[in-house]
C-alpha cells in the first residue's frame, strides 16, 4: 500500500471557532476511505481544506499521484508573503504566481475531484454540457480551430463527448443526456455530479455525503457503483457519509472526527468497537 494523500497537523479556525485541530491521517492508494463523525465534527471543513476551498491555517497537505511528482496542496492556493521573501526572489516569484493564478482549480487539475453536499450542477445546462465543462482543460486549447470548426476541434469535441457518454453509461444516465440538469430527479442529479467529477479524470475522488437524500435502493446501487470505481477503474475514494451502514459496508479505512480532532482510525470493524467513537456518537 502506498500513500496517496498525507494530511499532517491540519488546523483550521474560523474566528474563534476551532474547526480542525491538529488532524493527521492518510489516504491509501486505491482504497475507499471514509470520514465520519457527528454533525459539526469538521468533516466538510477537512474536505474543503483538501480540495482547496478553504486555506488551512496550519499544517501540510501532500498529494502523491502515481508516476508524477508530489504536490504540496497548500502551496497551490497561494500563501501569504513573509518578511523573508526578498531573500529568495525565485521562491517569491513562484509564490506570486500561485497567488495570482492559484486556487482550488489547481488542486482539481492535480487530480483531486469532488462533489458537494448540496448538489452543485449547472442547472440551466444539459447533462452532457455539464460533463463537457468538466473536460474544459482538455478542450480549451483548440481556440482558433474551434472558431473555424476545423477538423481537429471536432475530433477533440467528439472524444470529449464519447468520454462523457462513457461515464453516463456507467451511471445509467444515457437517456438523460440532453435534459437540463436542473430538471432531473434528485437521485439522478447526485449521480450526474459524480459523473461530472469523474470526467476530470481524477486520481482521488472526494464524495461529500453521496447518499444523502437517496432512498435505500438508490443508496445500494450507489454503493455498488462506488465499489466498481475502486475495483475496475482503480480510483481512490475519500467520502464523508452519515449512513453508517454504507460506510461499514463500503470502506477499507475509517477516520472518525469529533470536535475537529481525529479520535480514531482504522478498519471499519475496529473503529466500530472503539470506546471513544461510541462515546462521541452516543454521549
Amino acid at each position: 500500500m502506498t500513500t496517496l494523500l498525507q494530511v499532517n497537523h491540519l488546523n483550521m479556525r474560523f474566528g474563534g471557532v476551532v474547526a480542525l485541530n491538529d488532524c493527521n491521517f492518510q489516504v491509501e492508494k486505491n482504497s475507499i476511505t471514509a470520514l465520519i463523525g457527528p454533525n459539526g465534527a469538521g468533516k466538510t471543513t477537512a474536505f474543503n481544506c483538501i480540495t482547496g476551498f478553504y486555506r488551512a491555517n496550519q499544517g501540510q497537505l501532500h498529494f502523491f499521484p502515481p508516476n508524477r511528482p508530489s504536490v504540496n496542496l497548500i502551496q497551490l492556493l497561494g500563501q501569504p508573503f513573509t518578511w523573508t521573501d526578498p531573500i529568495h526572489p525565485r521562491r517569491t516569484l513562484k509564490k506570486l504566481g500561485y497567488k495570482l493564478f492559484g486556487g482550488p482549480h489547481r488542486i482539481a487539475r492535480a487530480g483531486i475531484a469532488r462533489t458537494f453536499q448540496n448538489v452543485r450542477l449547472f442547472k440551466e445546462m444539459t447533462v452532457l454540457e455539464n460533463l463537457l465543462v468538466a473536460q474544459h482543460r482538455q478542450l480549451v486549447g483548440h481556440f482558433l480551430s474551434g472558431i473555424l470548426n476545423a477538423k481537429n476541434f471536432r475530433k477533440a469535441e467528439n472524444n470529449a463527448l464519447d468520454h462523457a457518454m462513457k461515464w453516463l453509461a456507467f451511471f445509467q444516465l444515457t437517456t438523460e443526456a440532453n435534459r437540463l440538469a436542473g430538471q432531473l430527479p434528485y437521485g439522478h442529479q447526485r449521480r450526474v455530479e459524480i459523473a461530472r467529477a469523474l470526467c476530470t479524470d481524477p486520481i482521488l475522488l472526494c464524495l461529500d455525503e453521496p447518499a444523502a437524500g437517496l432512498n435505500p435502493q438508490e443508496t445500494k446501487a450507489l454503493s455498488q457503483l462506488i465499489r466498481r470505481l475502486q475495483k475496475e477503474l482503480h480510483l481512490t475514494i475519500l467520502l464523508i457519509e452519515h449512513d453508517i451502514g454504507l460506510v461499514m459496508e463500503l470502506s477499507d479505512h475509517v477516520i472518525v472526527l469529533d470536535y475537529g480532532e481525529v479520535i480514531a482510525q482504522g478498519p471499519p470493524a475496529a473503529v466500530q468497537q472503539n470506546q471513544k467513537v461510541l462515546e462521541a456518537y452516543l454521549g
Partner: protein
Amino acid sequence: MELAILAQQTLNGLILGATYGLIAIGYTMVYGIIGMINFAHGEIYMVSAYVTAIFLAVLHYFGLANVPLMLLAVLLATMFVTALYGWFLERIAYRPLRGSTRLAPLITAIGLSLILQNYVRLSQGARSQGIPSLLQGSFAITLGNDERLVQITYVQTLIIIVAFLSMAILTVIMHHTSLGRACRATEQDRIMASLLGIDTDRIIATVFVIGAAMAAIAGVLVTLNYGSFDFHIGFVTGIKAFTAAVLGGIGSLPGAMLGGLVLGLSESFFSGFVNADYKDVFAFSLLVLVLIFRPSGFLGHPQVVKV
C-alpha cells in the same frame, strides 16, 4: 497650510461625511440582510430632496411660519413618504424575485432607479429646483491668534446634530429592541429566523424602510444646506454613499457611519488641497481600490464562502 482652511475643510468634510454615512446605512443594512446591493437607494435619496422642497412649499402655503416646527414637520413627513418609497421598492424589485438568480434583483433595482429618475423628471421638470434658505446666520470660531474665522452656519450645526442623533437612535433601536433583535437574527440566518417565528419578509421590508428613512434625513439636511437639487443627484451621491458603506465594511452599521466620515473628510481634503474637478474621480477610485485591496472594509468581517 493655513490652520483656518484646514479647519474649514475638516468641517465641510464632517458634514459631507455625515450625510454619506446616513445614506450608507441603507446600503449596509440591506446588504447585511439580503446580501444584495440596493441600486435604487440613491434615487430614494433624490426623491427625498424633492419631497422636502414640496412639503416646505405646502407648509409655507398654509402659513406656517415657525421655523423649528416647520423643519420638524418636514423632516417627519419626508421620512414617512420616503420610507414608503423604500417599502415599495422592496415590494416591487426584491420580494417577487426572492429565490431567483442573483442577477435578477440587481437588474430590477436598476430598472427601478431609471423609473424613479424619469418619473421625477417628467413630473417635476428637468431643471434644478431649490428651496429658500430658512436658517440664516452662523457661528464664527476664532482659532488661536489667527485672524481668519471658521464659519459654521446654523444649518451645518443642525446637520451634525441631527445626523449623529439619528445614528445614535438607530443604534439603540438595533441593539435594544425586539425589532432590532429580529433584524439581527434575520441577518445571521434567514431560514432559522423564520423557523423561530420571525416574519422575515416583514423584517426585510422594515430594513428597506429604515434605510429609506435614513436617506430621507440626509435628503432633508442636504437640501437645507445647499438649497438646490435636480433629478440627477441620486446617482453620484448613491455611488459615494455605497463607497462609504464598503469603506466601513459593508453589513456593519457603525462601519457605514465611520466610512461616511472617512470618505467625506478625504473627499473634502482632496477637493480643497489637490483638485476640486477630480473629487468624484477620487471618490470612485477610492471605491475601486478599497474593493480590490480590502473588500471587508474597516469594520467588516472577511467573508467565508460556504461550500
